[in-house]
């Protein structure tokens, strides 16, 4: 378990660093695939099967293929590189490292067990949300489906209104709008000067 976690975590982090370092856009896309694929592996390890599969299907199989397609359409020559200015890179790198240390210090500073107890005390829960069905096997598909339909059988006291039906509908309408909008934006236009 921890061995797999180490492998996937290292691959995710190194892939992300390589995305920043590499200059060629297609190599960036390749390292992004490595990174996002390993994140999907992390999701599988964290018992989120559906999220991991969605990550693979939507991000790696969909979005990134689209990005590479975009790279091919917009490349003005083979292996197009637009180098970043070194000054900017150094400044951004410094700020990034500082930010990372800040986040790291914060993560280590928080007492997660204590906060869990406090949350449970505040919400009058005796055992806390012990989570969803069969956590050990990551079978969260049906609970997720119920949650998206607005039913929450996994919440202990059956809190009303804890479902996600409205966000789900909004997301679907949003996707429709995006579909039409993207098709409209990227449509083949007649150049005015040509006519």
């Amino acid at each position, binding site marked *: 378990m921890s061995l797999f976690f180490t492998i996937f975590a290292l691959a995710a982090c190194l892939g992300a660093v390589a995305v920043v370092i590499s200059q060629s856009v297609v190599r960036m896309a390749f390292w992004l695939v490595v990174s996002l694929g390993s994140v999907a592996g992390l999701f599988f390890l964290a018992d989120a*099967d559906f999220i991991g599969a969605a990550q693979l299907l939507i991000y790696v*199989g969909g979005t990134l293929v689209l990005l*590479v397609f975009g790279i*091919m359409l917009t490349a003005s020559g083979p*292996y197009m590189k637009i180098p970043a200015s070194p000054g900017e890179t150094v400044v951004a790198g410094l700020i990034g490292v500082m930010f990372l240390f800040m986040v790291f210090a914060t993560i280590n500073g928080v007492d997660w067990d204590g906060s869990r107890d406090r949350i449970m005390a505040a919400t009058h829960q005796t055992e806390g949300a012990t989570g969803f069905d069969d956590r050990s096997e990551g079978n969260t598909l049906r609970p997720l489906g119920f949650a998206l339909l607005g039913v929450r059988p996994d919440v202990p006291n059956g809190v009303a209104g804890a479902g996600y039906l409205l966000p789900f509908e909004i997301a679907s309408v949003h996707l429709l709008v995006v579909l039409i909008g993207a098709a409209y934006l990227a449509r083949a236009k007649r150049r005015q000067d040509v006519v």
Partner: protein
Amino acid sequence: MINTLAANSLTDALTGPLPLLGWDISSDTAFVIAAIIHAVLIFHVFALCPFFLIWLERKGSGRIQDRLGPTRVGGRFGWLQSLADGIKLIQKEDLCPPVADAMLFRSAPYIVCLASFAAFVVLPFSHSWVAVSADCGLFILLAILSLEVFGIIMAGYSSGSKWSLFGGMREAAQMVSYEIPLAICALIPIVSAGSLNLGEIGDMQSGHLGNWFLFHDPFTFVAFFVFFVVLTAGCKRAPFDLAEAESELVGGFHTEYSGMRWSFFFMGEYASMFALCGVAAILFLGGWHTGIPGVDGLLQEWRTRGEFTPFGYLANVIGAGVFVSKAAFGVFVQIWLRWTLPRLRIDQVMITCLKYFVPISCFLFLGATVWPLLFMFVWEQTTIYPEPLGKRAAEIWSVRHDDSESNESVSTDADAGSSNDSESIEVELSSGQYVASTNKNVDLQLQSDSSEQTALAASIEVRQ
């Protein structure tokens, strides 16, 4: 996900003192051994698929073109031809063109291979013969197979050749659009099944031919053929093999490849053909069930005796044989199509997908969802499965959810009244496949067996 179904049963079988040597195997060690066994088995399936299918392709194409095909290597039918090909390919020089982006060029074949290999992890070969029995198995399988296209695009782009680039771009456009009807068509039997677990879906279709999802309703019947055509396009097989189109693009995305790396693409291609045809067999053609009424019932009866009993094991072996032959027949039809039909143009391929397959599959999906309602309102009866989908899903979920709680309560007050009830749940769950509960025949049994208490508790649980 970590605790896999088949690995668990193997782990249980391995745990304990070893018969001959007297070693005591802990459950952790047994789990590792079970995992290794699965990995090795899947790797062999992955390697032997192309081995057999490439031979089949050469033989089939030969027959269709009125030739003999390979005849010499390995005796009468040239059945070792793939081995000879492999040995030849290993000896070839591994070339990398100077204009290529070497790192991407070298790693692209591995991505293709890795993706189609990983798809076998969630593909069941027989009842509970699956490495990872995930609840969203079909979704994971489609997701992993969609990674394959990325390797092909990488290969096309990084070769630094215009033929490869054209091949890669065609592949990208084709894949992104064909994934949509593929996923929608795969969802159509799911609407009737109420589960994404491939093992469950396969087990629902036991009994007789009429239980196959192919014959479930007119929409699934049409959906199978649409699915098969889309699947052929998804595997970039002729008449949709625009990515390699050897008469116009030399070799398409693999123009610049040679030796082992070139053969990796084909291993990946044939393995994913097999995997997708296997999915089609599970979704529509009854998976590992023969479809013959008496035989299926007998095999099902053998399976209930336990997985590691001789008859149970034999039933599973027969099931695996049936499944593999169904999938191989699907691949054979693809081969047959390839050598029969001429190749489409790229714009025709895109129009076929976007103007025909997407609307058709959307209509079929709508029809498949409306069909049970029609039955309910017009004839006041449900389709072959006794209950609506949502209710069944809720019951499966709550029965499994209840299990942990009811176990505790029963252990505290093991009275005569509740023991019968808990037993029926436990039998159902300890067989590892609550699958059985969704099967038509068993479902009726279960309803008569289990006391009203469970149903009541389940419905209360869901209402909350």
